[in-house]
């Protein structure tokens, strides 16, 4: 190594920056609140229809660091909801939300839904109140088979909506 001192400084600087970032207090302490915003899905321009009360929220929970399979699960789920429930989406009966649980204000979802990895969760509402929810854990087992993944998500959505 021609200039070990420079390399020494460079590598130690990288480690120091990493340690400083790790030690950095999370934004819990800043008081900033970041709400999970509903993510609009790119749908074909629908004809104006009367809106309906919200009955189902389809969540996709993730962390800041994303992985290939996680993104695939998110993309598949969003596409399937858009494709099979376009009318309900457009009229507000179903809502899609991608939520980063690493944001301090979203961390409570981990306990609420008992999440242990990136997950798709269906939350059934009645008059704005939760009546039940389901974590779609099998998305991880089925992600290698797009068709099976699709029928699983569609079935689960229909089941929680009461066969509608």
């Amino acid at each position, binding site marked *: 190594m021609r200039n070990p001192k420079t390399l*020494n400084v460079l590598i130690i600087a990288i480690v120091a920056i990493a340690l400083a970032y790790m030690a950095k207090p999370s934004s819990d302490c800043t008081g900033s609140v970041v709400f999970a915003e509903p993510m609009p899905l790119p749908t074909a321009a629908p004809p104006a229809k009367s809106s309906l009360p919200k009955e189902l929220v389809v969540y996709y929970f993730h962390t800041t660091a994303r992985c290939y399979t996680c993104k695939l699960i998110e993309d598949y789920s969003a596409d399937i909801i858009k494709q099979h429930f376009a009318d309900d989406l457009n009229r507000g009966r179903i809502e899609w939300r991608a939520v980063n649980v690493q944001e301090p204000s979203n961390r409570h979802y981990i306990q609420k839904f008992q999440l242990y*990895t990136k997950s798709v969760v269906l939350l059934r509402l009645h008059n704005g109140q939760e009546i039940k929810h389901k974590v779609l854990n099998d998305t991880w087992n089925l992600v290698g088979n797009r068709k099976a993944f699709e029928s699983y998500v569609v079935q689960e959505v229909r089941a929680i909506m009461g066969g509608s």
Partner: protein
Amino acid sequence: MDTIWVSAASAVWLGILTSISPCPLATNVVAISYIAKGIEQPRRVLLTGMLYTAGRMLAYVVLAAVLVSSLLSLPDVAYWLQTRMNQIIGPILVLTGILLLDLVPLRLPQWGGRISQRLREKADAWGSGGAVLLGVLFALSFCPVSAAIFFGSLIPLSTQAGSTFTLPLLYGAGTALPVFGFAILVAFGARTLGNVFQKVTSWEIWARRITALVFVAVGIYFIANYTLEILN
């Protein structure tokens, strides 16, 4: 009786599935290079591989025991391991790589001398003991796929089968199996080629340097992805 064997085979298979999924690839590359670097001494490669496997088995058995006994909340543990553990591993890999490389003289003024040589000798004296530590650290650095399999499949399987020791143990062995096998192939392949060219000794020096660079590169990747979050 059959159920026990099915559960045992499932645990090993879940471990293999975890290991061959794309997300632990970076840590697997580090482990393979670490195990395979001792090409001059085949016994050391086998011993390092076995100790790495033992480290993984130990980590999963302890973690399963903690979770099953409900000492800690499963979602909280899963979240912490997937975020903080990956942040901790980055700097550890970079520093270990520097020590293995032995190109950068670390000087600590209060010690008044070059310590990297001493540290490296000490690391060598541990022999393959570091492999156990590496196994524990990598087992605990969960990624989404391994978390889904461990927390979502293995823990329920172990609880259902009433085997919270053996099944996590077998799962740990399964996670190390592909890495161990591949490391043996790499080490013995390199040794055979080295014999042909009568350069085993000099190849070992290069194997060590490559291992060190893999540690530094993967460490920087972990820091960039999990700590600085600039790769997303």
